């Protein structure tokens, strides 16, 4: 990761996090002076960093520091208010349609339909990806949900929903995996499995961005670290 030191607040009132963005297709992420505003509140303020393809970035920060906003921006689900995002050499806004097949997000919310079964949720994703539905059973087995595959998600605990979401992420085989609090709601064995999945993704060359408060877990899984504080980046 390439991150320069913070600068001072400019006349705009925005805090400044100066950086050295280098446009390069070997970078998975180039976040260039990116800000995001919700109403009057700046969730991210002039954030800049680059992350090489295949690297893994630990994103830390207090609640409300902008971690989830940054992940949703990187997932192309949000537009930056100002600045530019480049993912795999492509513009993160103008070319989001071509980028999305390469990106997966494990978010706070599960992205699941409560009234569909675990299998139906995965088959829906498989069909949209053009993948054979036969892959779903193997993934549900890997996620430890084979016994509950035909039960509706509404009957699942938060941990089981998290397991099902990771099954969906693995089905997609992304080049960029964005993980927002992946250990939340998981029991110890679930946490160990999640760590295993993240290591597998990294070994397969997937660029991983991991946001978590469980820094001890994250540090063993990531090569880079970025700390956010009130939407500003600091070297950790």
């Amino acid at each position, binding site marked *: 990761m390439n991150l320069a030191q913070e600068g001072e607040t400019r006349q705009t009132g925005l805090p400044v996090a100066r950086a050295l963005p280098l446009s390069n297709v070997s970078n998975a992420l180039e976040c260039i002076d990116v800000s995001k505003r919700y109403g009057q509140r700046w969730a991210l303020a002039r954030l800049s960093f680059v992350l090489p393809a295949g690297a893994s970035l630990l994103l830390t920060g207090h609640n409300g520091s902008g971690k989830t906003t940054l992940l949703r921006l990187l*997932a*192309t*689900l949000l*537009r930056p208010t100002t600045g530019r995002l480049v993912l795999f050499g492509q513009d993160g806004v103008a070319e*989001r*349609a071509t980028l*999305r*097949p390469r*990106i*997966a*997000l494990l*978010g706070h*919310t*599960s*992205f*699941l*339909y*409560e*009234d*569909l079964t675990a299998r*139906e949720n995965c088959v*829906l*994703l*498989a*069909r*949209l*990806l*053009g*993948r*054979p539905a036969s*892959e779903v059973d*193997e993934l549900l087995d890997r996620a430890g949900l084979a016994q509950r595959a035909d039960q*509706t998600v509404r009957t699942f605990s938060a941990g089981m*929903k998290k397991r099902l979401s990771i099954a*969906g992420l693995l*089905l*997609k*085989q992304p080049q960029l995996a964005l993980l927002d609090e992946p250990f939340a709601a998981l029991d110890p064995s679930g946490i160990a499995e999640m760590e295993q999945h993240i290591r597998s993704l990294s070994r397969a060359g997937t660029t991983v961005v991991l946001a978590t408060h469980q820094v001890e877990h994250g540090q063993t899984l990531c090569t880079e670290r970025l700390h956010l504080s009130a939407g500003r980046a600091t070297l950790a």
Partner: protein
Amino acid sequence: MSAGRPPNLLGATWVLVRKDLLLEWRTRARANALVFFSLATLLLFSFALGPDTTILRRAAGGTLWLAILLASVLALGESFRVEQENAALDGLRLAPADARALFLAKSLANALLLMLLGTVILPVLAALAGVTLVQGPGPMAVVLVLGALAIAGPGTLYAAIASQARARDVLLPLLLFPLLIPALVAAAKATSLVFEGDPMLQFRSWLGLLAGFDLVYWSLGFVLFPRVLED
């Protein structure tokens, strides 16, 4: 695991229609609520218009479509509430599902629900107002199909807009009802002609207006829905 080829627009639409219909089937209580709401609306109209069967017969076409239109607000709003639970819509955007396929699928599923609703409440209306299908079931089916499409196309677009607003339940009818006036008039007139006969041969004109309305608003929805979803 093998790399796959994503489906084209029609393929994605089919996948999403199946998902929407499966969700409707799983939560049949919602469809039941729509039916009972529409039946209550028909009863209220018949009480409000009084016991005169001539007036009831004359108003039958409009009564049918007002009952469907009022129920559609519930159906359209609910169809996006399902997508917002667990941010499932974001999951589809990221899958990625073509936003135009999302529009087509959601609109078709809503239209099918409204057609079914119209079919279910039609016999009740016939009993209340003493009307019969003078022109036969074929023309009535055509009016139901075109009328349901007329509500579902722009309704889905506006439901997507309203779903992002705080006052969504108020916003949707405020946006939708004025827009649907031409379609409502055409559907009500065409339905009345099915009930009372068509000596002046006006039926095709009303159907033409309804079909034109469908074409314009489905095309607009197809073009605008991706912007609504992304921006």
